[in-house]
């Protein structure tokens, strides 16, 4: 015979405040909303129990964390706690308390959880205005010559962007460079000058800003600024958003070396076809059996040589978004295409990003 379920112990204000404070401190919008839903472990009428080990993650692991302490003080506010209690006892969609949600959004910004922050600000109906505030202050910093701050403002503003075209409903715009890089290289460059990496400096910078900022309107705000400033902006953007860029730059330089060697090999093969092969060429040709996909593998940091060019490109753009601006597609055999490094030797951006071979 089935045993009747044990009645749930009365939930204390402390447990409720702790659980919410933890989500607020960690900028966790998903768990914040979860705590209100019909099967929330904080609801007295739910069969779920907050004391169960599976809900340990809803409680703070460190109660001395300053963000948590501050959030806990907020959640202990009698008015907020009473509102939360009322919502937990109510049937139907809850009405979220605005103060904890605003604090949650701010903490999410501090912790760089920008999509969570965007979602919370959107619920609060302040997202666009806060995004505009970041842009206005960033523009002021750029006017004052403080690129570091300017870039930080733009990074935050683009991170708070919303995708109103998302299906079935609008969602925070997530960085999707693995897809954007494919679009950037969607068309095979029939002439060398068609390659993104070989665009004239101003056009290349423009492409870079639109690709990296992911929002044509926001990128458009920078278009009236001098090229030199935009190049410096891109340099700071790459270093602020991609802490492992220098590792990629080292791989890029290595790939440049491999591409050069591969070029020499093609020249040797051409000489052989024309019957002008020397003994040295023959010796080199016998030794050199390397797969040209090694160049793409070196760029993306993969060991496999079995991938398609677009797989290397997606991988690379996912880890190092800006990398897609300095590579090109290249057909090397009838059914073999690779991604290889390519840049303009007069590019200031390439020099600043450490991609030029020493």
């Amino acid at each position, binding site marked *: 015979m089935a045993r009747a379920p044990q009645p749930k112990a009365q939930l204390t204000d402390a447990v409720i405040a702790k659980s919410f404070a933890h989500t607020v401190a960690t900028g966790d919008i998903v768990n914040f909303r979860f705590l209100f839903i019909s099967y929330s472990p904080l609801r007295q009428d739910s069969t779920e129990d907050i004391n169960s080990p599976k809900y340990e993650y809803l409680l703070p692991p460190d109660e001395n964390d300053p963000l948590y302490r501050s959030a806990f003080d907020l959640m202990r506010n009698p008015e907020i706690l009473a*509102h939360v209690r009322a919502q937990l006892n109510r049937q*139907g*969609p809850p*009405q*979220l*308390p*605005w103060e904890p*949600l*605003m604090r949650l959004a*701010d903490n999410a*910004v*501090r*912790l*760089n959880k920008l999509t969570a922050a965007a979602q919370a600000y959107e*619920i*609060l*109906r*302040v997202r666009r*205005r*806060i995004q505009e*505030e*970041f842009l206005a*202050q*960033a523009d002021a*910093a750029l006017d004052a010559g403080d690129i*570091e*701050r300017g870039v*930080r*403002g733009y990074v*935050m503003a683009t991170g708070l962007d919303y*995708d*109103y*075209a998302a*299906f079935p*409903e*609008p969602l925070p715009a997530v960085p999707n460079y693995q897809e954007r890089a494919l679009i950037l290289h969607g068309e095979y460059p029939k002439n060398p000058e068609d390659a993104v990496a070989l665009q004239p400096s101003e056009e290349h910078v423009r492409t870079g800003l*639109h690709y990296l900022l992911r929002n*044509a*309107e926001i990128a*458009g705000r920078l278009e009236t600024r001098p090229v030199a400033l935009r190049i410096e902006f891109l340099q700071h953007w790459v270093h602020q958003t991609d802490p492992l860029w220098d590792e990629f730059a080292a791989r890029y330089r290595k790939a440049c070396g491999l591409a050069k060697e591969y070029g020499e090999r093609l020249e040797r093969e051409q000489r052989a076809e024309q019957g002008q092969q020397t003994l040295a060429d023959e010796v080199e040709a016998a030794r050199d059996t390397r797969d040209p996909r090694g160049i793409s593998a070196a760029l993306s940091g993969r060991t496999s040589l079995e991938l398609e060019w677009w797989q290397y490109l997606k991988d690379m753009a996912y880890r190092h978004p800006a990398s897609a601006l300095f590579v090109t597609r290249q057909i090397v055999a009838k059914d073999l295409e690779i991604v290889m490094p390519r840049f303009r030797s007069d590019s200031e951006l390439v020099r600043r990003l450490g991609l030029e071979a020493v």
Partner: protein
Amino acid sequence: MASDSGYVDYVAVLGLEPDFKPADVRRVYRKKIKDLLIEISQVQVTEERRNRFLLAIAQLNAAFYILRDKDRCEKYLADRAQVMQIEEDWRAQADKTEASDQFRRQFDQALRDFLSVYMEELMLEAGRDPECVENSNWDAAHERHASSVLRRYRQQLFHEIHERLPFYDITQPVVDWDERSRFVAAIIAGEGQ
């Protein structure tokens, strides 16, 4: 009176008088679409401009397609007036929880239906109308690209309207914008992180 913004007024898009005739619709539409196509041909088309121009063409096409047909026009004007009336009713009941919730649901559904029919479906349908195709050079490639532009446009309108409505899913925020500005300054300075 509910705000007009968000419920796109196709009569105003074409700049027609309230007592317009079908012949006025055709004449004004042809002039406006011609002027727009000339403007497009004279500027360098960036991604942002392309989206804006696509939307402008789609709006003119939709305005022409809806207003030139008597039945379609009457239905559009009635649906628009109705959704604006429901918004007004809801605002009037906003402080009464039970009634407010009922009006909110009714309004939410009516608004979604209105926007998806008149700000998306009929805009795309207009692009397949032979007269619109002839005047605007709209083709399948435009439609493919416009579908995401229109979805974004529709959701943006929805959010614009939503933002001015009474708060129901959250307690009404009391935002101190000076404090917000200081918070943003601290984050940009790298202090808050």
